[in-house]
């Protein structure tokens, strides 16, 4: 299981609504909206500290 870095929801990687590759890592999102927010300012959501990275596929 992975966590959406924007809304912090738990998502199943294959069934996520969207994904993003950032600095060699793949992030999964519950919705396209979350991905868009993330793509605009990835550091803002990653710097939050509590965000979980999911492992590379």
């Amino acid at each position, binding site marked *: 299981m992975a966590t959406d870095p924007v809304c912090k929801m738990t998502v199943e*990687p*294959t*069934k*996520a*609504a*969207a*994904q*993003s*590759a950032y600095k060699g890592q793949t992030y999964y999102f519950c919705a*396209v909206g979350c*991905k*868009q927010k993330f793509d605009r300012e990835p550091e803002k959501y990653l710097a939050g500290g509590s965000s979980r990275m999911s492992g590379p596929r």
Partner: protein
Amino acid sequence: MDKEKRTFAVRGMHCAACVGKVERALRGVPGVGAASVNLATERATVEWDPARADAPALASAVAAAGYELAEASAPATPGDATQDREQIARAEEQGRLRRRVLVGIALSIPIVLGSMTEVFPWAPAWLRDPWTLLLLATPVQFWVGADFHRGFLHDVRYRSASMSTLVSLGTNAAYFFSLAVTLWPHVFMDLGAMPYYETAAVVITLVALGRWLEARARGRTSEAIRRLVSLAPRTTRALRNGVEVDVPTSEVVVGDLVRIRPGERVPVDGEVVEGASTIDESMLTGESLPVEKAPGASVFGGTVNRTGSFVFRATRVGGETTLARIVKLVEEAQGSRAPIQRLADQVAAVFVPVVLAIAAATLVGWWLLGPSPSILYALTNAVAVLVIACPCAMGLATPTAIMVATGRGAEVGVLVKSATALETLANVDTVVFDKTGTLTVGRPTVTDVIAAPGVAEEDLLAFAAAAEQGSEHPIGEAIVARAKERGLALPPVTEFVTVPGQGIDALAPEGRLLLGNRALIEARGVDVSALAPRAEALAQAGKTVVYLAVAFRPLGLVAVADTLKPEARAVVGALRQRGIEVTMLTGDDRRTAAAIAREADIDRVLAEILPQDKAREIARLREHGRRVAMVGDGINDAPALAQADVGIAMGSGTDVAIEAADVTLMRGDLRGVVAAVDLSRRTIRIVKENLGWAFGYNVVLIPVAAGLLYPFWGVLLSPILAGAAMAFSSVSVVTNSLRLKRWRPSSQ
């Protein structure tokens, strides 16, 4: 100064020459700039300077030429139920001709029985009495034949000649000579002269029969307009003061808010203000893929809403809507058709002066050189020349060939609506095809399935079809159809979400399933750059490409395109072989158009043509001296179909196209175009042969009638010889026409 331009109804026209006469009469009025008259729609469009002329002046000028100019019924507007006044008038005209033919037949039969005593020796004596024959022949001559005599008077005034001239001249000569023989039998009978009542009656009846047969083929032109008009719904659900009310569409005003529910037709043009939907605009654009509509988008009257519901603000109503403009284009196109001079009239125009000269020479020759009483011989023989010069089979030459040809055409799937279309088609040198639905099948089918490395093509198609099941979108239907053809088992897919304008987002057991355009896939973070070059190449070829990704892994591409009908290439080749140039006309972009044209082997392509410009392109070709047949299927093709010399509609197409066209190909098979051209050429050849037979016997008898044989054998024209010529030429013509029954389309 402002010009005034109006359209009038013209009554009383029945031939190409009439059109010229009415036009000349109108142009002769001071202040009139332009006047164009249409025979098929019986309308005249006139432009004039209101300071120098007015409508009553035009009407009296036309009346002086022997026709009637009347107010045209108001142009039809969508949603309006009142029309067809002209159709009623045309039905009356047909009824009038039919009554005359029936009376002509009823009276001609006893006249023939009573006259041809050698053939019908059992006819009662009272029927043989010349006074009985006079009684029977008079109504035929002056009531059944009234139109011909009227036509004759017109021709005299304009120094022209047509079939009417010949008929009127010949039958009047026969009738009045017979009247003289009846009044003073001893004067004429001593010369061996006999009455010609049966010749006059039979000629008039047969030519009237031909004219009636042709009138039945005419007069369905306004049907296209009626069908177009009925496309817009009669009532509209308008929002007024926040309340939904049903109002007649004709009362919708600009600015009204209109609600459209799923499956309804849009009544007027406007702009979406609330809600969203997809709309089938194929009737206007010919494009089979439905169009997405969000607030701000334009919607058009007559188009069909699919699944969504929305509110729009009316921006164009009544005569201003796109649909109304198409109606107007069709009407204008029908009004601008150049009349063709019928073959029989062409022959008559040459024949009449020659015959008159021979008759005059006969009169003078016998008067000067003939035996006593020379004036009587001169009169008798001059009359005989006029009588024999009017072959009754002439009136049958064209109608019988046309009737047999149209009957045979219908049997092989080519429905020909008018006699003139069949005559014109033979001379066509350019055939213009609409693309979508005419050259092509009209709906997309899967053309390419391109799987990413390591992916089975079957799996790709199965996922795509699973996502599209239940889709009403033509692309989805094409994919599902292909999967079904292959007998693929579809994976259970759930949670369908349609992303408007992009594709489908769903959930397969293997994970997130994305099917759609590049934007849809990339918005979800799937990298499809590896597939992009292939996709670009397919798009270049005019295909629509959808990407498929499952669990964020790009699986491949499915390309769909409207495909060429299988027979299209052979048909293009067959037309070229017949010396006909082939052009394709489409609203589609150049790429798609070029791809289809290449496949069909068409080298002349006019792409990105707006629907309203299709007719203009046809008009342009015609201005360059081309005789154009247009082949189309959509409502947007209707103006072009009406504009062309011959319009050919696909039977699989819209009713409006079928009504606007002259020829309909059943089953939408393009081979019908070649068949129609061949049938037409064959028919024209038969008509020409018929005219040869019709005139032939009589031409041979003209020297006899003129008395050239008299000095040697004492032979002059007798009713027996005239009757034999009538019988032989009629039988020859009808038999020759029946040969068309055996015509069959060439197998290409």
